[in-house]
């Protein structure tokens, strides 16, 4: 009996009640066959791949209610419930294209992204580090892109008629104050953050997302690297100092630290300098980073940086150059940033963080001490929701607090103090929606409450992009942006309102097979700029106005010539302002009408070397000559620079690096300073503002010690 039942059961499990054939055809929305799609009865082995003509056919022994699914890369999955009762099934299926594909339209107005993650980027992360003339400075490399104006005596990013303070730096979404290191008057400063720290850089010359505030002209958004993968120690010996870095990795976390000492004293001995140094700049810098992966996709990042630098020099009187005043300067800087990213379920992501900035400048001018301290905190939370494949929603809130204090001893040795505390609270919301692969729109709104001004502002930001062809796409952006006036003005008048800029941008871009063409036209309107009342810097209002307009061209090609990668940028700028001490509307001194750059890079494997070359041109800038009737009537000569670098890799773990700027020795003049009083003939005497040295030569030797000898520091240079 038992045996009989066993046998029956055995046969039941072995034989099937009936088999059904499932067949059909899979096509896309245009009616084209999709070959290679995976058709399956979910939870079983049964299924087939579609043939070249989109047809499929298979037999299944499954019965009852089942789910048939069809999947293919780049398309949304198709599922359908089917009843299997021995009868054959035939299906006609249309797969819809998934939008999050590499060839979908993207919003490109105003923004340059450099990174490996999104592969269709205009710059690679490594480009920032390997551009000749930039000497591994982020701003230096970005200054070769359209939309920027070369302002050689500053080293900062001046974007579309905006001054250097109108570009705001963000690290992992958190605001950075004082993003540039200390520099002597009229000498270029370098960014405090080294390019190799970041996996991605997004440089926006206008029309940026509602997430970013307190920036009138430009947002530089830096994404720091995730957990490190390799244990290594790096040692660099430089002609101007040295550095040591170490990275230690664990399964889910990593720690890295770096100490750098820079002393340009030996260097200043070698090359004739424009500046009369008492003590050339010396700086000690340390930074550390910690990364911890959390859950499947979460990460916590900590980063800290401190820097101490000082120098002193003699300022020569313009009328009587033998008369000097000693200028001593010390800077203490600290930045700390903690950020996190965590996905909540399938559709939600939360991110946010906290940053702390500390900057202290101490100056002694001709025996008289003065100084300023700025402390800033920033707290931010952002939630992102993928409503569907086509709609993304983002909203968040942040709080910024800036406290500032400046002090000096007046002629009676009484301490004069100017200070303020400015809390800013902001909230933003933004939605990005794809109507199809060809059309995307982003609309956002940002609201800020400024503590000092006691006012609420609401600003719209809108972008759309349309891709009518296989390759090229158009993008349009509009937005209103605001920024509190610079400390030196806000400390005089705490009630100053935020300065405002409106951007209108039209962009066309084609990226195809390692070639990029891009052009942009824009108009920018400035409102509520700080203005001196009757030329008196002690009386400030928000009655200044201005505009900037222009067009830009960019071409990059790493395809046409083997091993050669080059890009060309051109910017045309027409800008005028009536602000600060301007008696009439005029072009500001930092603006130049034409800016042109060519950057080339080539790796020559026969001699294991990478060569880089950069040529930059800026048309004359205006300056004010008090001897002339017309305000800002003077014109400087044009700026020109030809820079070169070479990295030689004799061994996989060793790099020898040489870089030189201004090979042609062009005498670049950025403007003129004039004596405060006229000389005996009644004329104001001028002095040219020149480069601190005609050429900058840099030599470095870099070793990497790791288990794997082929890793070296090239990506860091």
């Amino acid at each position: 009996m038992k045996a009989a039942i066993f046998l029956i059961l055995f046969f039941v499990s072995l034989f099937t009640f009936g088999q059904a054939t499932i067949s059909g055809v899979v096509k896309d929305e245009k009616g084209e066959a999709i070959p290679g799609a995976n058709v399956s009865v979910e939870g079983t082995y049964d299924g087939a791949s579609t043939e070249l003509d989109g047809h499929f056919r298979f037999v299944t022994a499954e019965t009852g209610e089942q789910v048939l699914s069809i999947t293919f890369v780049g398309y949304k999955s198709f599922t359908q419930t089917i009843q299997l009762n021995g009868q054959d099934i035939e299906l006609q299926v249309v797969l819809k294209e998934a939008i999050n594909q590499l060839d979908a339209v993207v919003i490109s107005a105003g923004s340059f992204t450099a990174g490996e993650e999104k592969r269709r980027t205009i710059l690679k992360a490594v480009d920032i580090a390997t551009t000749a003339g930039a000497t591994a400075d982020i701003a230096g490399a970005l200054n070769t892109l359209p939309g920027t104006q070369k302002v050689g005596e500053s080293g900062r990013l001046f974007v579309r008629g905006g001054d250097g303070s109108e570009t705001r730096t963000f690290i992992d979404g958190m605001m950075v104050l004082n993003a540039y290191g200390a520099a002597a008057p009229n000498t270029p400063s370098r960014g405090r953050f080294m390019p190799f720290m970041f996996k991605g850089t997004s440089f926006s010359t206008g029309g940026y997302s509602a997430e970013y505030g307190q920036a009138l002209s430009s947002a530089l958004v830096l994404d720091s690297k995730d957990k490190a993968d390799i244990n290594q120690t790096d040692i660099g010996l430089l002609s101007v100092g040295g550095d040591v870095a170490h990275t230690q990795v664990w399964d889910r976390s990593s720690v890295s630290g770096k100490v750098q000492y820079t002393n340009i004293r030996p260097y200043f001995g070698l090359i004739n300098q424009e500046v009369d140094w008492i003590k050339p700049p010396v700086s000690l810098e340390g930074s550390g980073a910690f990364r911890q992966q959390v859950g499947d996709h979460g990460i916590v990042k900590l980063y800290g940086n401190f820097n101490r630098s000082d120098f002193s020099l003699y300022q020569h009187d313009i009328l009587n150059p033998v008369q000097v005043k000693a200028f001593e300067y010390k800077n203490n800087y600290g930045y700390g940033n903690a950020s996190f990213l965590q996905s909540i379920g399938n559709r939600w992501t939360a991110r946010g963080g906290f940053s702390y900035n500390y900057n202290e400048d101490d100056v002694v001018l001709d025996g008289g001490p003065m100084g300023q301290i700025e402390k800033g905190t920033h707290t931010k939370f952002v939630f992102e929701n993928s409503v569907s494949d086509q709609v993304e929603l983002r909203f968040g809130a942040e709080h910024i607090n800036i406290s500032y204090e400046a002090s000096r001893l007046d002629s009676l040795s009484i301490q004069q103090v100017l200070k303020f505390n400015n809390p800013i609270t902001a909230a933003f919301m933004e939605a990005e929606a794809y109507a199809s692969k060809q059309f995307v729109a982003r609309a956002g709104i940002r609201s800020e409450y400024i503590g000092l001004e006691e006012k609420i502002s609401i600003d719209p930001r809108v972008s759309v992009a349309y891709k009518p062809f296989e390759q090229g796409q158009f993008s349009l952006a509009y937005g209103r942006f605001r920024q509190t006036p610079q400390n030196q003005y806000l400390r005089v008048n705490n009630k100053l309102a935020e300065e405002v800029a409106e951007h209108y941008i039209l962009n066309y871009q084609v990226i195809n097979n390692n070639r990029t063409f891009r052009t942009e036209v824009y108009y920018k309107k400035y409102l509520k700029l700080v203005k001196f009342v009757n030329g008196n810097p002690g009386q400030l209002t928000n009655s200044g106005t201005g505009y900037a307009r222009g067009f830009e061209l960019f071409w990059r090609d790493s395809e046409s010539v083997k091993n050669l990668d080059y890009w060309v940028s051109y910017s045309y700028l027409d800008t005028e302002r009536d602000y600060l001490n301007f008696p009439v509307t005029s072009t500001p001194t930092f603006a130049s009408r034409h800016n042109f750059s060519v950057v080339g890079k080539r790796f020559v494997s026969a001699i294991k070397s990478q060569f880089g070359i950069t040529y930059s041109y800026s048309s004359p800038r205006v300056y004010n000559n008090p001897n002339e009737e017309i305000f800002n009537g003077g014109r400087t000569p044009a700026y020109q620079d030809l820079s070169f670098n070479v990295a030689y890799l004799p061994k996989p773990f060793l790099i020898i690096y040489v870089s030189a700027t201004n090979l042609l020795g062009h005498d670049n003049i950025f403007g003129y300073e004039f004596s405060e009083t006229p000389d005996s003939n009644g004329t104001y005497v001028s002095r040219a503002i020149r480069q601190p040295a005609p050429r900058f030569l840099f030599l470095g030797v870099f070793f990497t010690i790791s288990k794997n000898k082929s890793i070296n520091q090239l990506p860091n240079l």
Partner: protein
Amino acid sequence: MIISVLSFCTGLLFANDKYEKAMQANIDAIYNAQSPEQIQAAINSFERIGAAEKSKWEPFYYASFGYVMMSTRELDGTKKDLLLDKATEGLNKAKAIRADESEIVALEGFVYMMRVTVDPATRGQQYSGMAMQTFGKALSLNPNNPRAMALLAQMEFGTAQFFKAPTTSACEKATKSLEMFESYKSENALAPAWGKESAMRVLKQCN
């Protein structure tokens, strides 16, 4: 009671047999595939089996291997990356089932190696380091994994050639991997068996 246990056992036995049969057929198909279409068809089968079985790492491993094979034939960088993304997806599923399998880790290194080829100038440093480190990890999980050794030899050989450095160490590793291929034995009937040719290719350039 006895009956239900028995029928359960036969069910299991059959299920296992069915799994191995289906896998073996598709493994043969992927090793012998001539066209991307044939590889894709095999990958699809592995994905179906993987989705049905849920607790076996091999289907996802072979699906991933299929995408890596396809990426070796693809010339367009963007498409190559897309295939490698799919390969990584499969590897992540395999790793979720068996985290410390040397074969999975070795294939992960292979993916990094292929990432380098998309854009050697900008990716070389990062991904070649990651590839070597990953092959090292695969060998620490199983010192007898001939594929990890062969891939490591290939990677080292390429790097040495690039820097015009001696290829001795790379060639020794290639020889060693061939010995490992000869003596390789696995209790798993579905264990990977590919990779010998690439070791032989390296050795050919050594002499």
